[in-house]
């Protein structure tokens, strides 16, 4: 089972151009180390799915020209303000947006996790979101208990889920605690690639307390150790975001040149994408 352990560069190599790639929000588990490696390898044409939103991961990939389609409920850098490269890409018309809403994304993934074609979702009726989605429709309750329209969303089946977690073991088990959106992502995706701050010496499923918050290795294709792998974004229970660095990013990412200088320093310079260590 030890062949599940690999490098960050190998994880990036396993995400092909054009892949449908599921990513978590900044407050969950972001494999920024792999995002940098992906940009360094020049991935193109990604269809990024924010579960249910994306933050710095999305902004950086978009800025680096890696994303063709963005399917998300929002792009948010929270207290840091508007996402600069996302905003610029929308203005330039270079990004195909599939605007959604959080529970519809969760439900689409739930349909995939159950192996069924669609899932009904409350609300949404009368939202303009519905007008622009050919993978959403309305129907009625087949049992006739409700009269009104109910929205149905098609299953969302990502090719790859990419996440960062505090712990993973050599069996591919990944501890995510209560951040179970990552469990949903892993269940729904064909492959799940993981970086972890620490490789746990033992079997996470052997300890009942840890097992309840663990993605079983059966869903996980590969794991790479990446200490502080969420940096400069934070990791729940471990460390906060690197505020000075993120502010520097935002300042530079206001312009294309500034963003390029950021990539030169933190992504393209030799071994730069390992800068977290």
């Amino acid at each position: 089972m030890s062949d599940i352990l690999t490098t960050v560069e190998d994880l990036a190599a396993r995400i092909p151009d054009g892949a449908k790639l599921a990513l978590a929000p900044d407050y969950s588990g972001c494999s920024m180390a792999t995002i940098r490696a992906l940009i360094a390898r020049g991935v193109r044409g990604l269809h990024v799915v924010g579960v249910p939103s994306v933050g710095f991961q999305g902004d950086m990939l978009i800025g680096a020209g890696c994303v063709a389609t963005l399917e998300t409920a929002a792009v948010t850098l929270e207290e840091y303000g508007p996402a600069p490269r996302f905003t610029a890409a929308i203005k330039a018309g270079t990004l195909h947006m599939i605007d959604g809403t959080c529970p519809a994304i969760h439900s689409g993934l739930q349909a995939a996790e159950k192996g069924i074609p669609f899932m009904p979702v409350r609300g949404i009726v009368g939202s303009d979101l519905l007008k622009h989605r050919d993978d959403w429709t309305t129907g009625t309750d087949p049992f006739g208990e409700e009269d009104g329209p109910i929205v149905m969303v098609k299953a969302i089946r990502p090719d790859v889920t990419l996440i960062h977690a505090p712990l993973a073991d050599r069996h591919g088990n990944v501890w995510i605690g209560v951040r179970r959106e990552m469990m949903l992502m892993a269940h729904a995706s064909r492959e799940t690639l993981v970086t972890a701050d620490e490789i746990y010496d033992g079997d996470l499923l052997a300890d009942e307390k840890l097992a309840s918050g663990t993605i079983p290795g059966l869903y996980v294709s590969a794991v790479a150790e990446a200490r502080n792998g969420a940096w400069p974004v934070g990791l729940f229970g471990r460390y906060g975001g690197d505020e000075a660095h993120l502010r520097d990013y935002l300042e530079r990412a206001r312009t294309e040149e500034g963003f390029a200088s950021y990539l030169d320093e933190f992504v393209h310079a030799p071994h730069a994408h390992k800068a977290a260590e």
Partner: protein
Amino acid sequence: MNADFLPEELLIATVADMLAGLRHVAVGAQSPIPGTAALLARARWGGALRVSMLGSETNSPFTDGGRELFDCASQGRIDAFFLGGGQIDGQANINLVGIGDYPDTKVRFPGSFGSAYLYFLVPRVILFREEHTARVLVPKVDFISAPGVSEESTYRKGGPHALVTGRCVFDFDDTAKRFCLQSVHPGHTVDEIREHTGFDYDTPDHVPETPAPDADTLALLRGDVADAVAERYPGFAAKIFGAANAA
């Protein structure tokens, strides 16, 4: 403006008043003032109010990931939630997507988040937008992220309760499907609000001033509540309560 409190503190206290007697208030993304208001309400009512703050490590009870808030809402387990909008119109439609002809938006906002769902399912949705200008409060939004009202046949358990801005409080009248000016914040006027509001609304003959927070409320706010909100919104807490505590 009375020098004894900050404009933000008035807004926090005003929103907190709207949460009296509720069991469970949830707070979404990018909501420092509503989030602080919810924590103030909880402190004021001795902890009887449950506050679930998305993305918080110390004030989120959820153990089933991002979906749990939404599942809770559709079961009626959440009494109040907060939504904002890059644009809000007179029928309480909100636009979190962008200005212009979608998808070719001239100005892009972050996105709809959970609004298209929660607006239908949470009984008391408080709209909050600090900027009160005719560019935000428009006759008709360019994109409806979530509609303020629905047809009779649509399953809908919730909707707009009030709109709180930096200048005033509007009530939403479910029957008339219109906003009604409820109170004007200290230092602002009825005429000024008319001038800066792009949509049509009702104005009663007498419009009271929004009540100022009392000394006990301010003490609670600047003490335990400021500490609690700093965990989720450190920048906001430093800016508001750093300043308020120094004053």
